[in-house]
């Protein structure tokens, strides 16, 4: 089916955006509070120490990572919760019945996931920036990694939502795959602090490149070359979008 219904795609995007705005305490305020708590805890735990090997104070190191982690988790939650709630409440049939192509449907979902991630990032920046003199060393990297990370995680949320049959399945994906990968991606530490084996393992975690590249955009230093990682992240995002399109096109796990 060729894209023929831009109004439909726009409406779906608006619907998905309104959905998270209607529960903003849960979707916007709660992540901000969590990030502030992390910040306070680590401030007292780490004191005024610098991050070894990067010559940057821990606060400035931590804040971009926390923002990116919240963006990734919220982008994932936006698509996955919408799809699984739709399946459980049977509302997903309206998505299937609407004259929307797979491209339009996936584009609307991913754009809404990105919107939520950007709103959360904006709120976190406002809340956390006063704690640090955070700069914007490379705004183009911040945008690139922020947008790609949101789309990638929105896409994984879409796939997870399509796969899950019940909320428990979704919790499984979230708690046993997404959470460990985000927590072990270098949000709270530099990989140079890890033993060699774990440094290597970390380089196989795609979220590591997202966090590191995004952070590089703010503080101008990182564990990898963010311009090399552009290809990894850009390619992964593109592949994820194609997989989402294909799975929605064939109705994987949503059509009998």
């Amino acid at each position: 089916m060729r894209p023929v219904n831009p109004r439909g795609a726009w409406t779906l995007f608006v619907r998905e955006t309104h959905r998270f705005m209607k529960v903003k305490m849960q979707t916007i305020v709660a992540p901000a509070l969590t990030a502030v708590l992390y910040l306070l805890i680590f401030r007292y735990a780490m004191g005024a120490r610098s991050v070894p090997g990067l010559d940057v104070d821990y606060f400035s190191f931590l804040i971009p990572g926390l923002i990116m982690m919240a963006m990734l988790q919220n982008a994932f939650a936006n698509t996955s919760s919408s799809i699984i709630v739709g399946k459980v409440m049977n509302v997903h049939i309206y998505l299937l019945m609407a004259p929307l192509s797979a491209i339009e449907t996936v584009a609307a979902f991913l754009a809404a996931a990105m919107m939520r991630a950007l709103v959360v990032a904006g709120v976190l920046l406002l809340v956390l920036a006063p704690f640090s003199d955070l700069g914007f060393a490379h705004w183009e990297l911040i945008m690139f990694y922020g947008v790609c990370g949101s789309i990638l995680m929105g896409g994984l949320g879409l796939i997870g939502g399509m796969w899950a049959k019940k909320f428990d399945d979704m919790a499984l994906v979230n708690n046993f795959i997404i959470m460990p990968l985000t927590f072990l991606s270098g949000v709270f530490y530099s990989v140079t602090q890890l033993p060699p084996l774990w440094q290597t393992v970390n380089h196989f975690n795609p979220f590591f490149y997202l966090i590191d590249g995004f952070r590089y955009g703010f503080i101008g230093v990182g564990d990898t070359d963010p311009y090399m990682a552009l290809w990894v992240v850009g390619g992964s995002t593109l592949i994820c979008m194609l997989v989402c399109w294909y799975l929605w096109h064939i109705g994987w796990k949503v059509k009998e």
Partner: protein
Amino acid sequence: MSEIALDLRHLSKVYANGKVALEDVSLQVPAGTFYALLGPNGAGKSTLINMLADIVRPGGGTARLFGHDMFRERAWCKRHMGVVPQEVAFDPFFNPREVLKITSGMFGCKPDMAWIDELLDRLELREQERKTTRQLSGGMRRRLLVAQALVHKPPLVILDEPTAGVDVELRRRLWDFMRELNAAGTTILLTTHYLEEAEELCEHVTIIDRGRVGTDRPMRELMREVAGRYLWLSYGEGFVLTDADKEALAAFQPRSNGRGVCLTLRHAQGGFHEAYEAAVARFGPPQDAGVRQEDLEDVFIRLTRKDNLS
């Protein structure tokens, strides 16, 4: 537009678990008709509707909507069709007015606020328009589904048991509304378990059973040629019709309501005496008896009896 609204040819569907849901189903719904698609539970009606609505993947066969291939020109066909699903589906985040605006937009239409107002009025949801769908009763949610199916003004509306859980008075007003839409040219395909409604509303009836079309004819013709009369004999509470009784009275297609037996009278010849004497010989003199005209429900039961399948 084509004179045939919906033209289904040799549709089949086998689910992944091997269950045959549809087998060579063909039917043609003329444009502008009020058309009944009936069948017992599990007959395949909802599979058929879900296949047309793109909720279930198509199996074999072809389907055309006003001449357009439903499996190839999905977008066009979806814009020209509204479906009320059998299962109540509601988005807990939005109120009825928002739901209708969203549905309208997703079908590619700029929300027509006058039409949305009219739908809310006619389906008696005006007072609830600002409540979230979570706060609506079951009947209200079902009426909202009807409004969603109509909000983009489709020329074909498929109603899959739209009145389940809706009270009698509202049901009547809903049907009045559907009649008006039908009179204005909307083709309506209805499935319902309220057979008296189907008999009253529909010009044509197709009965499917176990995935196959059993009967497909105009309602009047069906009632004139198939609906006969039946003799009912009352024997009091606890009456049981055994398999031996059924075999002995097989010529009269006996059925029981737990208080007596009903025997179909052969349409042309009458056959009252034969039926009465056969029953008395089998069960003795009844407490009460009478002859009644079959309605659609009687015909439906008779046509979909397990031992009546071809």
